[in-house]
C-alpha cells in the first residue's frame, strides 16, 4: 500500500505497556496522549502523541463498520434465507441457505494522504447478526476531519492467512484444507438453484486460496471504496455487499456448470476473486 501506514492498534498496545510499567505518581497526564496514565498525578513530560492526533487535534471519535447485504438492491436478511427467490444474471433462480465471510484490516483514508489501519478481522455470519457490526477498538480515537474513502481486505492477506492461528475461526470449522493451500475460508455462500432439468440442486460457493496442482496462490484482494466524507462525531460506516455481483461481473456465473467442488478449482477461485471486486459499496455514514 502506497500511503503512510499508521497502525493505531500497535500504538495502543505499546501505550498500555508503558502505562503499566510507569511510576505510580508521575507520568503522562494528558488524556489525549497515547501513553496517558490515569494514575499519574504529576506530568513528567513523557507524553507521546501518535502522528495524526499529535498535529494538534486530540479529540478522536469512535468508529464502527456495519455490514449490510442486498441482492441487486433488495435487502437480504436471515429471514430471506431458504426461499428460491433470487434470479441471478444468467437467469437462474436460486436461494441462499448460508452466508459467512471474512474481512480484515480495515483502512480509513485521510484527505491529507495518511491512512489509518486497524489490524483485525470480522467474521460475518448470518447465524449471528451481531457479527454484522464491527467496532474499532474502543481505545482507538480516529481523528476527526476529512476522509477520501474506506478500505479492507477480502479474506486474509498472506501474512494473516496461517492455518490454526485463530481459535474462534478454528471452532467455526473455517479452515481451508492444507492440500489446497491451508489458511482459512474467505466465504461460504450456499443455497439451492433450479437447474436446467428443472431439478432443485445445491450449490456451495466457497472462496479461499487458489490452488493449481500443488501451487498455492493467495486469493485475497483489497477493497478501496472512494467517497469523500468528514468525520466529526462517533460514526457508523455502512458497507454494502451486493450478493448478485458474485454471479455477474465480469464472469457471468453458470450454476449448472459451477455449483460444487469449487474449492480445489484454481480457475473458479480466480473467477470468484474477480467478481468479488464489484461486490462492495459504501453506504451511509451515520454520525
Amino acid at each position, binding site marked *: 500500500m502506497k500511503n503512510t501506514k499508521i497502525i493505531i492498534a500497535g500504538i495502543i498496545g505499546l501505550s498500555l505497556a508503558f502505562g503499566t510499567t510507569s511510576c505510580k505518581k508521575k507520568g503522562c497526564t494528558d488524556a489525549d496522549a497515547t501513553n496517558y496514565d490515569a494514575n499519574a498525578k504529576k506530568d513528567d513530560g513523557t507524553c507521546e502523541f501518535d502522528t495524526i492526533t499529535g498535529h494538534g487535534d486530540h479529540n478522536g471519535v469512535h468508529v464502527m463498520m456495519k455490514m449490510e447485504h442486498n441482492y441487486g438492491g433488495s435487502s437480504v436478511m436471515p429471514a430471506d*434465507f*431458504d426461499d428460491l427467490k433470487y434470479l441471478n444474471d444468467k437467469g437462474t433462480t436460486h436461494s441462499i*441457505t*448460508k452466508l459467512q465471510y471474512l474481512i480484515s484490516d480495515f483502512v480509513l483514508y485521510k484527505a491529507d494522504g495518511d491512512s489509518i489501519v486497524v489490524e483485525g478481522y470480522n467474521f460475518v455470519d448470518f447465524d449471528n447478526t451481531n457479527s454484522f457490526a464491527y467496532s474499532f477498538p474502543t481505545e482507538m480515537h480516529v481523528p476527526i476531519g476529512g476522509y477520501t474513502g474506506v478500505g479492507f481486505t477480502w479474506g486474509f492477506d498472506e501474512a494473516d492467512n496461517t*492455518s*490454526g492461528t485463530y*481459535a*474462534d475461526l*478454528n*471452532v*467455526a*470449522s473455517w*479452515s481451508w*484444507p*492444507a*492440500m489446497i493451500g491451508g489458511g482459512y475460508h474467505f466465504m461460504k455462500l*450456499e*443455497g*439451492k438453484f433450479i437447474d436446467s432439468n428443472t*431439478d*432443485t*440442486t*445445491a*450449490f*456451495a460457493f*466457497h472462496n479461499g486460496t487458489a490452488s493449481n496442482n500443488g501451487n498455492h496462490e493467495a486469493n485475497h484482494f483489497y477493497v478501496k471504496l472512494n467517497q469523500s466524507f468528514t468525520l466529526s462525531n462517533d460514526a457508523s460506516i455502512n458497507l454494502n455487499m451486493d450478493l448478485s455481483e458474485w454471479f455477474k461481473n465480469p464472469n457471468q456465473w453458470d450454476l449448472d456448470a459451477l455449483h*460444487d*467442488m*469449487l*474449492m*480445489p478449482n484454481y480457475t473458479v477461485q480466480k473467477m470468484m476473486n474477480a467478481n468479488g471486486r464489484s461486490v462492495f459499496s459504501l453506504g451511509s455514514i451515520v454520525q
Partner: protein
Amino acid sequence: MNYNLILVSLLLSISLFNSSCRKPKGCTDVTALNYDVNAEKDDGTCEYEVIPAPTPYTLEAPYTISQYLPAPSIPNDNPLTNEGIALGRKLFYEEKLSANNTISCASCHKQENAFTDDATFSVGIDGIAGNRNSMPLMNMAWDYGYQFFWDGRSIGLEGQAFEPVTNPIEMHNTWGSAVSELQADDKYPELFERAFGTNVIDSNLVVKALAQFERTLISGNSKFDKYLKGHLTLNPSELSGYNIFMDESGGDCFHCHGDPYNPLWTDNLYHNNGLDASFSDLGRGAVTGNPSDNGKFKTPSLRNLLYTAPYMHDGRFQTIDEVINHYSIGLQYSSTIDPLMKNVSTGGVQLNPQDRADLKAFLLTLTDEEFVTDSRFSDPD
C-alpha cells in the same frame, strides 16, 4: 454514681442464678462433634467439623484441543471443583435417580461405548424404548453453542441433566422423590456439603454436580491426535482416507465434521445429511418451529466411532461401512437437505471401494482407547 460496678454485679448475679440451676448442661446439637446426650441445656460449647471450601479444578485440555480451540465454556455459577466432580461422578452412576432404582445415566451412557450405548433405542425403567439413539458424551465443555440433544432442545449441560430423571421413557422419576432418596442416604448429604457448602440437597445442585463431571469427559488422545503432535505416522491407507475426508471433490466430510484445527470433529450445528425423503422425526424443526429446520440433527463427533455404534439419531446404521455407503450412494433428496450433500440424484459422492476402505481407516484413527478405560470416569463404587 459508678454504673460499671452496678453492671458487674448484675452480670454476677445472673451467672450465679444460672449456675444454681440443676439442669445438666452441654452441647445439645446432634450434628455437633461433641453432642452430649445427657445435656438438657445448651451451653454454647458445641463444636462442628469444619468442612473445607471445595478445591477449584482446572480442566486439562489435551494438546490438539488446547492448541486450537478457545477456552472451554464453563458457567460462572457452576465452577469446577474436585468435590463437585467427584459427587457428579457418583450421581452419574446412581440408580436412585430412577423411579425404581434400576437405571442410572451410565445405563445408557456407558464408558466402554464412549458414554453412549450399543442399543438402537435405549430402554428406560419401564422397558419402553425411546425413538432416538443415545449420544456419546465427550468434549462437551467445548460445545460453545450450549445446545444439547440431537435437536438441541436443552440449553446448557445443567439444563440437559434435568431431563432424563423425569423423562417417562427414561428414569421416569420425579425430582422430589429422587432428591429425598439422596437426602435420606447416609453419604450424600455430606458429599453435597463438601461440594456446595450445604447438606440440603435440591435438584439444582444435582444437575450442577452431574454437569461438572460431564465436563471432565475429555477425549483427545487418539492415534490422529498423536499424529498431529508428531508422535507417530499414519499408514498410507489412513493418510489417503484423511485426504478423502478433507477433499471437497472426495468425501468432503470436513465441512461439518471438523478438521485438524477443529479437533472436536463436529461443528455442533444442525444439518440434514440426506437420510430420508420424508421425516418421521422432524429433529431441529420441531424445536424451532421453522419448516426449513425439518430433518436437521446436531452433527455428532466422529471421535470414538469404534465404540459408538449404531449410528445416526435413530441408530439406523450398524457399521461404519453402512455410514460411508450412505454418503457415497444412499442420499435421499428432501427440500432441507444440506447443500454440501453432493450428487444427490445419483446418491452421493460415489467413493470407490478403495476410497471407502481408506476413509474408514482414517475414521478409526480418531479412536481414543484411553478415554474408554480412564479410571477417573468409571463407577466410583
